[in-house]
């Protein structure tokens, strides 16, 4: 049997005393958390341990005794050995170290053996094996391995993958996770430093004095009233949004389509997470709050930078003056395109009558659109000015506003696309059905297959006429559909790029990545062991170093869930939809799911 003892590095040179820690359930290991020095009163030790157990919730016990004899401290070993009777335990560790030597020696006493017999047996064994030395225990030949760990780093670190909802059942938890959790939750044990005037003196990582930063304390004090203010503001805002007039159907539909409104509601949710005044209960919640806070701050900073650039040197007026000529230019280009289609585009033969009809129809639409833009042109500068102010809420708002403006300015392209697609879809549908009639077959809706059918004379006649007409008009419609679909795809791509960058800003965990770069021990994937000393006369000593998480795993684990836009269809489905003429809305919005 191998017994693992996790020993903190800060206690390597501690004075002799009692070891306080925890036995890890389900495994053959113990974690040493602190050393309580001689002299002490056992009753006070017991009281202190119970107090600490109540405060921290960890099952602390006295694990054994530690002796590092200095000059003038002989005879302490026997005293320490007698202590095993005062603190009755299943197993009692006796760890000894000589000054100048690197290795420890350890004896493990089991409870069910009588104290005296055990001591005699131990002494006998030691006499026999004096030449060989060795840290072996009793007749079970227990080997002991000392794993040294840096207490402060392990206390702050969080081992991944984090599983939630498994707090009570510790029997099945793996050893490392239990060890990390024990150290992390024993924080009350580390509050007593050497300047305290209490009855007990202990050694742990903070025993040289507790450090605290003034800034952190000030921010902690200031955060409570800030959170209260924020939650009050949020309540006001939600009250305004819930006014009846805003839940009318057209406004609701519009607000679900405009990405600015979506982004606004999203940020409101984030602020709501941030504004709860109590501290985060678990590591995941803490990381999420921190990520949201840092991302909001960075967003606002970038937004303010954008505003500073926009409002100096009269950039707004320049943009406004550019906008109307740009819209005119786009419209003129569209008109030229339509004129080209109405001729003989690329040498294709179009049906002249249909061509003229469709071309004139679309030209009239463009004419309407241009009139509308010209009507709006005096107000554009004002709109831009006030719209630019919204960037003070964050760069993400500016991006979503830009996306909405692009959608509004290319609304006519969207309309043309819908007309063309509907016409084409109808044509394809009619053609496929009439082609079946041509061959004398019919679609069986019940069985979802094609069956033969005997048609009447009139059905056949009219069906063939319509089939001929649709077939010969197909190239014209298909060309218009193709042109407008391409235009629409260009606009959709541009909007998609904007949305993807918006999603990136919303969900990227800046805080977690920063933490990984500056303090990598806080996000641990596992540990690695290094052999410290392997002298034949003492137990094996290993040093445990924390293996930090990979950056890609950090991003994946701590991504804030957002309404991410990702492509709805695979490429094959998209091509098929294009071919048949179904309307394409390629970016699907995922609703946020509560964790």
């Amino acid at each position: 049997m191998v017994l693992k003892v996790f020993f903190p590095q800060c206690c390597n040179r501690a004075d002799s005393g009692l070891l306080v820690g925890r036995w890890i359930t389900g495994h053959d290991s113990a974690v040493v958390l602190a050393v309580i020095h001689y002299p002490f009163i056992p009753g006070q030790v017991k009281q202190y341990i119970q107090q600490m157990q109540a405060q921290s919730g960890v099952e602390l016990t006295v694990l054994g005794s530690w002796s590092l004899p200095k000059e003038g401290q002989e005879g302490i070993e026997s005293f320490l050995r007698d202590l095993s009777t005062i603190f009755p335990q299943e197993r009692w560790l006796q760890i000894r170290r000589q000054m100048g030597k690197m290795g420890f020696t350890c004896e493990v006493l089991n409870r069910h053996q009588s104290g005296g017999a055990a001591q005699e047996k131990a002494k006998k064994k030691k006499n026999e094996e004096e030449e060989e030395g060795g840290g072996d225990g009793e007749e079970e030949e227990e080997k002991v391995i000392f794993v040294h760990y840096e207490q402060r780093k392990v206390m702050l670190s969080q081992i991944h993958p984090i599983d939630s909802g498994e707090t009570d059942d510790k029997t099945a938890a793996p050893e490392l996770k239990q060890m990390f959790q024990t150290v992390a939750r024993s924080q009350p044990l580390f509050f007593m430093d050497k300047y305290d005037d209490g009855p007990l003196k202990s050694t742990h990582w903070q025993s040289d004095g507790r450090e605290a930063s003034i800034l952190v304390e000030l921010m902690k004090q200031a955060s409570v009233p800030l959170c209260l203010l924020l939650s009050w503001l949020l309540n006001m805002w939600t009250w305004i949004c819930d006014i009846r007039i805003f839940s009318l159907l057209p406004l609701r539909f519009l607000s679900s389509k405009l990405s600015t409104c979506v982004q606004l509601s999203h940020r409101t949710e984030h602020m709501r997470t941030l504004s709860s005044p109590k501290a985060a209960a678990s590591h995941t919640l803490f990381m999420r709050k921190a990520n949201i806070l840092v991302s909001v701050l960075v967003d606002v900073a970038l937004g303010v930078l954008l505003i500073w650039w926009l409002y100096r040197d009269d950039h707004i007026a320049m943009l406004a003056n550019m906008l109307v000529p740009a819209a005119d230019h786009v419209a003129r280009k569209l008109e030229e395109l339509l004129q080209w289609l109405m001729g003989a585009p690329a040498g294709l033969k179009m049906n002249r009558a249909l061509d003229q009809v469709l071309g004139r129809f679309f030209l009239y639409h463009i004419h309407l659109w241009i009139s509308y833009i010209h009507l709006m042109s005096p107000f554009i500068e004002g709109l831009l000015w006030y719209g630019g102010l919204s960037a003070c809420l964050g760069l993400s708002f500016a991006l979503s506003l830009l996306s909405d403006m692009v959608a509004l300015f290319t609304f006519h392209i969207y309309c043309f696309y819908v007309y063309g697609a509907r016409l084409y879809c109808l044509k394809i549908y009619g053609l496929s059905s009439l082609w079946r009639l041509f061959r004398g077959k019919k679609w069986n809706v019940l069985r979802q297959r094609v069956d033969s059918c005997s048609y009447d004379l009139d059905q056949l006649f009219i069906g063939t006429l319509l089939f001929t007409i649709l077939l010969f008009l197909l190239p014209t419609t298909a060309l218009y559909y193709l042109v407008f679909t391409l235009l629409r795809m260009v606009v959709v791509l541009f909007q998609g790029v904007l949305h993807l960058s918006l999603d990136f800003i919303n969900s990227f965990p800046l805080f977690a990545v920063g933490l990984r770069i500056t303090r990598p021990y806080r996000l641990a994937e596992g540990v690695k062991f290094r052999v410290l000393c392997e002298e034949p006369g003492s137990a094996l000593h290993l040093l445990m170093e924390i293996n930090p998480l990979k950056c890609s795993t950090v991003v994946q684990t701590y991504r804030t869930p957002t309404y991410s836009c990702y492509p709805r269809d695979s490429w094959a489905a998209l091509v098929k939809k294009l071919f048949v003429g179904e309307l394409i809305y390629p970016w699907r919005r995922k609703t946020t799911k509560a964790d």
Partner: protein
Amino acid sequence: MGPDGAPGQAVPWRKVLWERQSFPDNYVDQRFLEELRRNEGIRQYRYWAVVKEAGFVGQQLSCVAIFITFWLYMEEGLLTPETLLWTSLLCALLGYGLHQALTSQTDSCSEPRTRLADLQSAAIFLSFTFGFSPVLKTLTESVSTDTVYAMSAVMLLAHLLSFPYSQPSPPGSLSLNAALFASVCLASRLPGALHTFAMLSCALLVFALWPCLLQRMRENAPCQFTGMCVGVCIGGVGGLGSQTLGGAVLLSLALVSVTLLCPLLLVWLQRHKDNIHGPWDEAEIHEDLSRFLH
């Protein structure tokens, strides 16, 4: 391993699979293939009967030729659309009268169509064709002439190949549709919308209504049916001959080969028929399922 290979056995060989016998597995005795029958149930064709049936095919060929003649006349301008329209109307009325006369003799139709339903159908045809004829006129404007001729030829060929010669009365979908498609393609080449309308009405008459009348005649007046077939063939050849002599020659050659040569070939090649039947054939159900239809 034949019958000679087996030793003289006291137990005779039985043609069963489930019993282990002392003979090898591929052993056959002298009763091998005695149940083989050759050419059982083949029909004996008589030349003139086959010629009479093949006449129907020739007749259909001539119908197509007559239609093409009309189109040629219209394109040359020798036939005005009004004339064609009035002639078609007259022929339709005559045909309808004949059809009704032949029907009243055999009163066992499954679904008697009323005069009103017929009138309704006629109204639908005429209104649709008239309404769509301007659209149909401009359909093939941008398609080259060669393509149009090629498409029409292919479609008419498909019509001839898929025509239900045995039962022309419910018109076969593919054949009628192919013929109408070809007629639309040809009609759209004519100079005016009225021409298109006239051509389509003529096509409807020739391809949709004429076979119904023929079917009635075949059922009820077989001798007149044969005479009618011959008349149509002569009309086709003559009509084509007035426009293109080469076409007439081709048509007569085709008619002769289909009506006279092919039956000769069929009858002559019967001698080479060699079907074998035996108890290994798939079972055919000869039950009369019509008793389920009542």
